[in-house]
């Protein structure tokens, strides 16, 4: 700020100068701090279900400790995760949207797609079960909901769960829509709560359902179609120059290692009395389906 020698309110001027400059110093100091390895770090894009269940809080610190690589985890819908991977904005993906994953593999921008684990989807709904779907195969259950025009809440967010849901409507031969069908555009936790408030049906992964107490009950489970399979996909330099190829490969390698698979298999036993995910590294999808 310019100074001349006029003696008008000199004190307040110097005070204001002091205040402004100290604000700026604080501002700039705040800017520089805490930027460790913005470039070298590894960006893992994964789904909200792995975060909301708490699995990431176990896996990521363990990987960081083993590898010394700093991880930035983005928990987004599978659709966004795959898009970030294809653009080279994320280095490695842990996702559960098989059809979309195969599309990504077909672009040739990804390295390997490896099976990591599975859990299962469950169809949940109000205890009264107005559409009488309890115990039915999933396609029949969906058809039943549509016939009864019972309230159904969809994720509507292009996530893995959403694409699984759309697949079940197709199996049921139903084009969902109308007053009974609503989309939240939000994560699994939020969607479950909306369904709970409205006493509506929804499709959920078991982990998030268990992690979130509510009034809804499991009505359909155990159908092989309800398998929710997670793959890890490491991106390559073909997706973008700045992809951390080595880090991505290390992460993908690590998550299918015995150590990580044991962590996955044990996760949830303390809190829910049962594991939330089944480790599947090395198996084929057919083997996983046969076992279910």
């Amino acid at each position: 700020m310019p100074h001349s020698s006029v003696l008008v309110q000199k004190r307040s001027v110097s005070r204001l100068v002091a205040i402004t400059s100290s604000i700026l110093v604080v501002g700039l100091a705040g800017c520089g701090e805490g930027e460790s390895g913005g470039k070298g770090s590894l960006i893992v894009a994964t789904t909200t279900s792995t975060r909301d269940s708490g699995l990431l809080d176990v896996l990521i610190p363990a990987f960081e400790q083993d590898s010394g690589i700093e991880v930035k985890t983005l928990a987004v819908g599978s659709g966004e995760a795959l898009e970030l991977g294809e653009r080279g904005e994320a280095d490695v993906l842990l996702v559960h949207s098989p059809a979309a994953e195969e599309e990504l593999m077909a672009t040739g921008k990804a390295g390997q797609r490896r099976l990591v684990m599975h859990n299962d989807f469950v169809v949940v709904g109000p205890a009264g079960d107005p559409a009488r779907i309890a115990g039915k195969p999933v396609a029949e259950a969906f058809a039943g909901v549509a016939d009864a025009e019972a309230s159904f809440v969809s994720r509507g967010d292009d996530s893995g769960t959403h694409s699984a849901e759309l697949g079940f409507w197709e199996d049921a031969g139903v084009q969902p829509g109308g007053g009974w069908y609503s989309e939240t555009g939000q994560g699994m936790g939020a969607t479950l709560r909306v369904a709970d408030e409205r006493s509506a049906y929804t499709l959920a992964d078991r982990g998030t359902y268990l992690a979130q107490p509510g009034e809804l009950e499991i009505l359909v489970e155990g159908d092989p179609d309800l398998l929710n399979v997670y793959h890890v996909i490491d991106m390559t330099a073909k997706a973008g120059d700045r992809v951390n190829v080595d880090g991505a490969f290390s992460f993908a390698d690590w998550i299918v290692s015995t150590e990580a698979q044991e962590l996955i298999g044990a996760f949830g036993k303390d809190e829910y009395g049962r594991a939330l995910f089944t480790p599947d590294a090395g198996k084929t999808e057919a083997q996983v389906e046969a076992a279910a």
Partner: protein
Amino acid sequence: MDVIWDAIRDAIRLLAGGDQQTYEIIWLSLRVSVSATAIAFALGLPLGMLLAFGRFRGRWPVLALVNTGMGLPPVVVGLVVTVLLWRSGPLGDLGLLFTPTAMVIAQASIGAPLVAGLSAAALQHVDPDFRVQMQAIGASPARALWEVAVEARLPLIAAGMAAFGALISEVGAAMMVGGNIAGETRVLTTAAVLEASRGEFALAVALGLILLTVAFTVNLALTTLQQRGRP
């Protein structure tokens, strides 16, 4: 209603119980939003001065544009900054996406028009003769301008408070450019959204209460500064 009581209890427990994670989140929120407010002020005040006293063609449309900018949706700003900072974007070399710096950039962009618009109004409110008189007694134009700013310090500090309040409470841009990464870019607002999405409502409201406490403390300091020497 239980949630509210639980929230109050949780807030006290988190604040008084020395929960390290909570302190880190509070500190990051303050660092990001205070920095962004300071930068918004450093950019917005000169622009506000120009709009208040400059005599150039197109001043009114620019003023209207700035006033529109006072209502910039944080999520849109966040999206634009994200695209610019993408690895494949024009500023990708900087490697800033998902860092606190990116959050400061986004929030400063939201705050600058707010400060500019409010300070232009504040400065124009000072009697126009005041600046003329200043120059008549020998002050340089720049000095006279500064004296007008001093004269308008009350509404100018209020502009700062408005900007800080808007920035520390915004969630759209912080979520988009920061990514809500635990221990790195998680601030009070994004943490509250996360806890709400997990169904931890009491904890989410508790974080909101902590946010209000932090904002109150900062505003108390600024108000003390603003009201000093007044009855």
